[in-house]
């Protein structure tokens, strides 16, 4: 699948909606996943995750959550309706796909919050971080 294609976005939707499998759950304390399950339970916001391209344009993966389910994933040129808009450069996305730790990407501010209330965004931070990690695990071919 080509990165940031429609097919890829649909695969991402399936992956983030499914959440962690048993093997992944076993690597961290159950209370951590329990916290995420609770943060996610009624979640109904949307995230636009931007990829800034070398030509100066940014495209967005738009993920829409409803009652804890990821109900839509599209690739768009504008993040208009998203509650939270974040973006990263192509190298960061590349590193994410290569397995770079999502928490580290956030703490080094390689993925920046460009729009949205920072305090409410952080109230679900581990749900967000694990969802972005799941995006990184969806196989994708980077276009040139």
């Amino acid at each position, binding site marked *: 699948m080509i990165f940031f294609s429609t097919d890829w976005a649909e695969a991402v939707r399936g992956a983030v909606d499914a959440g962690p499998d048993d093997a992944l759950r076993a690597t961290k304390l159950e209370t*951590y996943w329990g*916290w995420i399950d609770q943060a996610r339970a009624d979640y109904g916001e949307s995230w636009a995750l931007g990829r800034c391209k070398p030509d100066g344009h940014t495209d967005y993966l738009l993920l829409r959550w409803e009652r804890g389910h990821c109900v839509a994933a599209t690739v768009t040129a504008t993040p208009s309706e998203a509650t939270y808009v974040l973006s990263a450069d192509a190298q960061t996305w590349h590193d994410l796909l290569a397995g770079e730790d999502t*928490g580290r990407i956030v*703490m080094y501010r390689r993925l920046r919050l460009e729009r949205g209330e*920072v305090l409410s965004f952080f109230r679900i931070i*581990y749900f967000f971080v694990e969802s972005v990690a799941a995006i990184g695990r969806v196989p994708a071919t980077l276009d040139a």
Partner: protein
Amino acid sequence: MDQEVLAGVEKSDLAQIRDLDIDDVIDYVHADLKRLPDYLDLYRRYLRQRWDVYELDFSQDIRDWNTAMTQSERDAFVAISSGFHHGERQVEVELPVFMLGGSEESKIFMSSQIEDEARHTIFFDRFYREVVGLPGESVQEVLDASFHHVSETFVGPFGLLAYLADELRRDPEDPVSRVRYGTTYFLWIEGVLALSVMKITLTYCRNRGFLPGYYAGFTATCRDEARHVQFGMRFLRDSVAEDPRLLREIHETLRTILTINGATSRRIALESLGWSPEEVRRLMIRQLSMKLNDVGIALPPDLQQMVARIEPELAGG
């Protein structure tokens, strides 16, 4: 509080600091909270108390680490210290943006705190390189080598600080952004997380007679924290006095921090350092309550309940 003991904490040089008891240094953090020195007092104190991180001698620490400490003690110690190694770096790099705003006195004090945090980062860099034996040419490489010890939940408070720093960068004078940032940095990360880790690891070193270089450097770090926390509490108190609506921002920030605090991803064998999770929890609650009480920040009932449910969290900066 014994004035003579406090004067000893105040005046010790790096060679004398290893004889101080960590409890006295923590008392010293709180001794001035009701009065709260002004920013230039704190700056003068910085000039007197500044220490040279390259003067520390880790040779006994290396022997203790390799021959006296057990594997489970080393594991717990590294797990706890890594949150501090990365925490010091994070508070160092996120601080310059706060210095862009505020009074001239605040900016002058901030220049000293930035230097403190850089020195604390070097302290951990030296400890990990020389005692733990992590490889790395650069500061970043040693950070990378200890990163796998850092808990998944580190990104909660420290990622929040990074994102609040970004918010502040857009308008460094914005009182709301400054208070949110100050609550996260000075009250929670320094006032609660850092002081709790200091108490746990330094009590362990002192009781067992281990790691004298670490004890001296981290106790000196704790004394630096006294200035940072006193600055921070003065900043929060003055902010609310100037505009009482900012109290709401402190509460909203604490609500976020305490929501994040509910997640724990790894179990740390605290028992091997002589602590139970329940003791750590009580320690953190006490650290938070003392500061809020001393500067007169009251909490609404929902926040009081969240404070009572605080989970052990081990990082700092």
